[in-house]
C-alpha cells in the first residue's frame, strides 16, 4: 500500500487533525470519553454526540474551543478525507475512526469490544488497509469469560452473605453503568447504591436513553440498611475511608485484569469479577483478520504479543508507543 496518510502520533496528515491526542491540539477527533483519550483544551473536537456530552460533564461546557457532533455511520468529508465514526462497543458513544483518502482506508479502533452491551452502541466491523488497534488485553492469557456468568458469581455471593454488603469497584465511566445494566438483566431489581463519583455519569446514561433502574446515593443510607445490598464505587474508594461506612463489605472489582488471581489478591480483592470493556486476545485476533488489513499498528497496552502474532500471520505490524498517562494505584479501563 501507499504511504499511510496517518502518522505515528495518529495525526491525519492531509487535514492536520489528531486522534485522541494527549496534548492540546487545534483539531482533535475523540474516540470516546475516557480520560486517557479525551482531554480538555483542544481547539476543535469532532466526536459522537454521546462522547461530547460525556466530555462536557467531566470537563465542563467549555472544555474545547468548539465541538462538532458527528452521528455514527454518517460520512463527513473534510478536504479530501472522508471520516466516518463507527460504533466501537467500548462505552456509550465510543467510536472507531474510519478514514478514506485517495482510495486508502484506515481504521483507528480506539478501545473496543465486540460482545453485545446495552450501555454502548454495538461494535461494527470496518474493513481497511491499515488498522490501528488497541491491545489492552493483548496477551493470550486474557480470555474473558461470559459477563453474565460473572454477575451470577456476584449474586451467589450476595445470597451467601446476607449480613454483608457487596461493594464493586468499577471505573466511573462505562464500567459502572455496564455492571448495573448486567445486574438488571440478571434480575437484580433492588436499589443499587452509588458512590458520589458515579452519580452524575449514571444520570447522563439514563438521560441518553439507557435505563439503569433504581439508583440511590450510598451516603443517605444507614449502615444497617446496606446489609445484603450492592454498592458501586471507584476502585480507589473501596479500600479507603469511604468504605468504613459499609457493613462488613465484600470487596469486588469488575475488570478484565481480575482474571489473574495473584493480582486480585495483591489488590486485596475478595471477589474478582472478570468483566471487561476491551476485546480479549481472541477478539483482537479475530478482528485483525476480519478487517483484512495488510498493515497493523498496535497501541495501548501489551503491544509485543499482538505485533508478534500479526507478523506470524504475514502482516506488516509495528507497535506505536503513544504517551498515555498511567494511573498509579489503579488501572483504568
Amino acid at each position, binding site marked *: 500500500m501507499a504511504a499511510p496518510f496517518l502518522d505515528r502520533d495518529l495525526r491525519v496528515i492531509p487535514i492536520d487533525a489528531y486522534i485522541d491526542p494527549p496534548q492540546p491540539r487545534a483539531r482533535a477527533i475523540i474516540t470516546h470519553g475516557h480520560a486517557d483519550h479525551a482531554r480538555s483544551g483542544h481547539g476543535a473536537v469532532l466526536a459522537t454526540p454521546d462522547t461530547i456530552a460525556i466530555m462536557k460533564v467531566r470537563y465542563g461546557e467549555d472544555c474545547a474551543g468548539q465541538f462538532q457532533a458527528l452521528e455514527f455511520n454518517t460520512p463527513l468529508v473534510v478536504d479530501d478525507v472522508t471520516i466516518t465514526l463507527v460504533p466501537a462497543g467500548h462505552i456509550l458513544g465510543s467510536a472507531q475512526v474510519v478514514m478514506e483518502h485517495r482510495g486508502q482506508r484506515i481504521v483507528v479502533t480506539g478501545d473496543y469490544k465486540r460482545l453485545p452491551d446495552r450501555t454502548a452502541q454495538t461494535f461494527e466491523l470496518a474493513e481497511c488497509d491499515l488498522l490501528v488497534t488497541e491491545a489492552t488485553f493483548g*496477551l493470550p*492469557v486474557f480470555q474473558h469469560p461470559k459477563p453474565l456468568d460473572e454477575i451470577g458469581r456476584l449474586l451467589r455471593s450476595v445470597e451467601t452473605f446476607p449480613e454483608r454488603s457487596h461493594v464493586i469497584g468499577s471505573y466511573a465511566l462505562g464500567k459502572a453503568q455496564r455492571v448495573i445494566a448486567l445486574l438488571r438483566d440478571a434480575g437484580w431489581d433492588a436499589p443499587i447504591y452509588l458512590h458520589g463519583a458515579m452519580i452524575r455519569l449514571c444520570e447522563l446514561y439514563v438521560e441518553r436513553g439507557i435505563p439503569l433502574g433504581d439508583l440511590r446515593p450510598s451516603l443517605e443510607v444507614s449502615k444497617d440498611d446496606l446489609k445484603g445490598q450492592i454498592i458501586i464505587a471507584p476502585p480507589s474508594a473501596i479500600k479507603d475511608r469511604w468504605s468504613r461506612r459499609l457493613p462488613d463489605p465484600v470487596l469486588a472489582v469488575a475488570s478484565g485484569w481480575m*482474571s489473574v*488471581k*495473584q493480582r486480585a489478591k495483591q489488590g486485596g480483592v*475478595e471477589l474478582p469479577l*472478570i468483566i471487561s470493556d476491551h476485546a480479549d486476545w481472541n477478539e483482537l485476533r479475530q478482528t485483525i483478520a476480519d478487517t483484512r488489513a495488510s498493515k497493523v499498528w498496535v497501541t495501548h497496552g501489551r503491544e*509485543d504479543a499482538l505485533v508478534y502474532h500479526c507478523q506470524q500471520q504475514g502482516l506488516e505490524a509495528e507497535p506505536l508507543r503513544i504517551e498515555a498517562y498511567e494511573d498509579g494505584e489503579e488501572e483504568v479501563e
Partner: protein
Amino acid sequence: MRAFAALMETLVLTPSRNRKLEAMVEYFRSTPDPDRGLGLAILTGALTFKNVKPAGLRDIVLDEVDPHLFALSYDYVGDLGETIALIWPHHGGTEPLPSLSDLVELFNMTSKAELPRLIGSLLTRATINERWALVKFATGALRIGVSARLAKTALAEMSGKPVQEIEEVWNGLTVPYTELFDWLDGRTERPDIDHASRFHPLMLSNPIDEEKDLEKLDPKDFVAEWKWDGIRVQLIAARGKVSLFSRTGDDIADAFPDVTGAVFGDAVLDGELLVGQEFDPAPFNDLQQRLNRKTALGKHLTAYPGFIRVYDMLFDGSEDIRALPWTERRARLETWFANNPQTRLDLSPIVQFDGWDQLAEIRRKGAAEHGHEGVMLKLRSSVYVPGRPKGLWYKWKRDPNVVDAILMYAQRGHGKRSSFYSDYTFGVWKGNEIVPIGKAYFGFTDEELKQLDKWVRNNTVASFGPVREVNKELVFEVAFDSAQQSTRHKSGVALRFPRINRIRWDKPATEAATLDDMQVFLSAT
C-alpha cells in the same frame, strides 16, 4: 470439583482467618466422602501427584500455544500454574469435571505418557476458575494460605470436637480420612492409633504477672530453666523411626535430617530446636535459615547444625508418663539420656535459685550476658497436660528493650484494617539522616489506630503505591525482644518482635534514638 475450586478461590482471596474457616467448615459439611477427605488432604499437603509436574504441564500447553507468546504471558503473570490455566486455548467441553475422587483416581491410574492428554482434556472441560484450581492442585503448588492447623481448626468447628483431640489422632490417619469424618460426624468412636508414634499436643505456659503471681507462689514448689530462643518441637523416636513436629503438629523432620538421623532410643520428647556448633545456640536468625524449607540445604547442615535442648519427656519408650509429676518425668529423662548417648540432643539444665528476688537477678543477668529470653517456672508436681493449663508452668520473660524511633512510612493493613494506615516503618538517627530499623503493626489500641491513621493522612509527604511517606515528626516508643545485625536494613540493625509500646505525641523527633544508641542492644546478644 466445582465446590473445591470455589473453596480454593475463597481461601486464596479472603484475608480473614474466620472466613477461611467458615468456607472450609461449609465445604466439609456439604461435601460427601471421600471427596471432602481428598479436599482436606490437598489443603494440608498430604496428597500430591508425583507424575504431574509444572514443567510437564507447560509442555502440554506448548503443543497448543506459540512458545514466544507463552513466554511473554508467563513473564506478565509471574506464576507458571496460573499462566497455564489462563492461556489454555480450548474451552467449552459439554460435561462438567469429574468429582475430586474420580479425578484423583484418574491421575493415579493414567500412565505418565498418557497424563498430558488427560489433563489437556480436563482443562478444556473446565470453567476458568476450575482450570486454575486444577493446575494448582495437580502440581501441588497451592500457596493458598492455609496451614494444616487451620484445616484442623475447621474440622473442630464443624464437629464440636476439641482441636487437640483431632491433632492427637491426625498423624495416624490416612487419606481420604473416612474414619476421621465418621468420628467427627458422631457415627463411630474415635479412631484408635499407635499412641507412642503420633504427635501429642504440647503443654504450654502462661506469662507470669510479677505483681500478682510471685507473692502467691512458693519458690520451693518450682524449678526454673532458661527460656531458649528457638522453636518448640516434639521429637518422637519409636521402633527405629524418628519424627519431628512443630508445636502445631506440622511434620518438619525432612528439614532437619541432621537431628532426626542421630537419635538413639525410643521416647517422645519435648524440647527446643536450636542451631549452633557444639550445642552453643546461635541467634534465632540462623535457625530461621533452616525453617520453612521442605528439605535441608547441604551448606546449612554444616553452617547451622541443628540440635534439640530437651526439657520434658512424654513417653519413656512406649510408656505414657504424662500423668507422672514433673520431678519423676525429669528423673526418667535423665536416666534415658544416660542409657542412650546422644550427639544432637542435650538436656536443658535446671537453674538453681532460692527466692524470687534472686531468680529475678539471674534472669536479668542471663538476658544481659547471654541474650536469654527469660526463665521458665515449672511446678514440681505438675503432670503433663496438653493446652495451656493455669498454675502449672509460667514463662517469665526478660524486660523488653525499648527505643524511641521516628515514624517514616505507613502502609495500609489487611482485612478489617485495610482502610487504615496500620503498618508502620520507623527509624533512628544516623547523623542528620533517619534510617529505618523496623516495622510494627500492633501494640496500639483501636482508638490510637484511628488517631495514627488520621495523623498519617495529614502528614503525608509522598505516596508510593500503597505506602505513604510521612513527615519525620512522630516518635514511637518501640519495644522489642532483641536486636541483631542485618544486611536487609540500611541501618544494619534488625529488631526481633517489635511492637509499638507507646505513642510519644509529646516527644520531638530530634530527641529520638540514634544508631549509636542501638549498639548496646547488639552486643547483648
